[in-house]
């Protein structure tokens, strides 16, 4: 309880640290905040060229929106993913990076990883805003009706990222390997999530192979155990298809977010007091 009260009183600190990062991020650049759009745009171009133009991955048209544009379909999954992976890396490095503060001032340490997630979230909000404009421009006006739900799931994904980020932040203090390992794992994770290809391709292969090792477990079952699978599906349903997401996906997202958040906080609070010593 005391901990939660401390956290509540650190609200302003959280806001100020986040503002510091947001303001400091693109200082002395000519393009400023536009830089945060450049990275998803360049990935969009590369992936569209390789996977759509060369390899001919064709996702189903949006149902019922009728949208049939690979680049837009891609962005609906890519933007949540790049937020997630950016938030994980940033919160993982926040404690080691904030060592000078931690060893000199007392404040609830959890503020540091949370403010890194919020900074990433701010950029993501900006990117999603641009995506909504693009969706409207190509005829997907309906997305506007779904914006409240999109916002809710943005919060759920941020909660999931925070939980995992808290665990990684602690792990990184003990073993600096974590940051290198995670950057590789994130890359693998991205390709194991239906971001640049439709999940139907996995389904086809899964049906062809059938149960693995004489069990009923198929490739698809394993594939769907990835929490990001469900998040990406929900964002695509809401923004590209513009319909209610599958309740199973919704439940999976919320459950993963809760588990990660509770686990992250438990681990973080257990180790928090010794951080100043170990850093």
């Amino acid at each position: 309880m005391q901990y939660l009260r401390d956290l509540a009183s650190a609200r302003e600190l959280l806001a100020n640290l986040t503002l510091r990062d947001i303001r400091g991020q693109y200082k002395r650049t000519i393009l400023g905040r536009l830089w945060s759009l450049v990275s998803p745009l360049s990935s969009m171009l590369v992936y569209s060229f390789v996977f759509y133009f060369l390899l001919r991955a064709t996702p189903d048209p949006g149902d019922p929106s009728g949208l049939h544009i690979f680049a837009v379909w891609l962005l609906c999954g890519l933007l949540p993913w790049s937020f997630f992976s950016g938030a994980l890396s940033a919160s993982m490095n926040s404690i080691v990076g904030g060592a000078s503060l931690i060893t000199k001032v007392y404040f609830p340490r959890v503020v540091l990883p949370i403010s890194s997630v919020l900074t990433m979230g701010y950029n993501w909000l900006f990117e999603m805003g641009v995506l909504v404009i693009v969706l409207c421009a190509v005829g997907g006006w309906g997305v506007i009706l779904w914006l409240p739900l999109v916002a809710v799931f943005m919060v759920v994904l941020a909660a999931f990222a925070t939980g995992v980020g808290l665990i990684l932040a602690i792990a990184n203090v003990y073993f600096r390997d974590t940051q290198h390992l995670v950057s590789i794992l994130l890359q693998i994770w991205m390709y194991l999530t239906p971001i640049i290809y439709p999940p139907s391709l996995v389904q086809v292969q899964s049906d062809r192979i059938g149960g693995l090792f004489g069990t009923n477990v198929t490739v698809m079952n394993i594939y769907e155990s990835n929490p990001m699978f469900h998040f990406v599906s929900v964002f695509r349903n809401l923004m590209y298809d513009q319909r209610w997401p599958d309740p199973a996906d919704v439940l999976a997202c919320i459950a993963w977010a809760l588990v990660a958040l509770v686990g992250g906080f438990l681990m973080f609070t257990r180790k928090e007091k010794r951080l100043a010593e170990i850093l």
Partner: protein
Amino acid sequence: MTETAVHVDSVSKKFRLYHERNQSLKSAIMRRKISVHEDFWALRDITFDVPVGSTFGLIGSNGSGKSTLLKCLAKILYPEHGSISANGKVAALLEVGSGFHPELSGRENVFLNGSILGMSRKEIQRKFDDIVSFSGVEQFIDQPVKNYSSGMYVRLGFSVAINVDPDILVVDEVLAVGDAEFQQKCFQKFEDFKAAGKTVILVSHSMGTVKQMCDHAAWINKGNLELVGPADPVIAAYEATYPHQG
């Protein structure tokens, strides 16, 4: 009997001296353990009370554990045994300008640093003019702090910290900042503090400072409390162990 501001109750703090520290997973797995270490007690069973309204000096030679004790008081480190209970809001001044972002202006950094030190936005707004005029950098307050001279940087950081207005202020040797005029201002501020009935806990190597400012002192030697009480006898006892410097 005066009231106590801080009650330090048999505090012990242990550090681990690592003979090998495996900060990579590979070595941790290969050797099947994270580290080989032995314990080092930086503080052993320290007990004393700091009376309300006093200026309390912690003295001792290098490596005696006084900074460790200060960090325990500031809640940065947590003691293995014992407890520290403070009667009021504690602010620690172990470093000036914590969390300053070089690209942001002095104004933005005052708000940032203030909230790191636990001030609310309204509080900072109310004290903003005091902070700026105390630091003497009015003219440059909207410039990025990376363009500040090191003196200006430290003065601004110190001004924020001194305006936190805690009941108990914990200070490491940061008094040696700024020019003579600024130091004079700082001493004045500590005097005001004292006059307002606030408690100051100070760590210093400079016996002159301690003599001038403190009315109570504790002498720590190799993690043990040697002597605690009114400042003059404690300082005399401490200095007696270094006859050459006397």
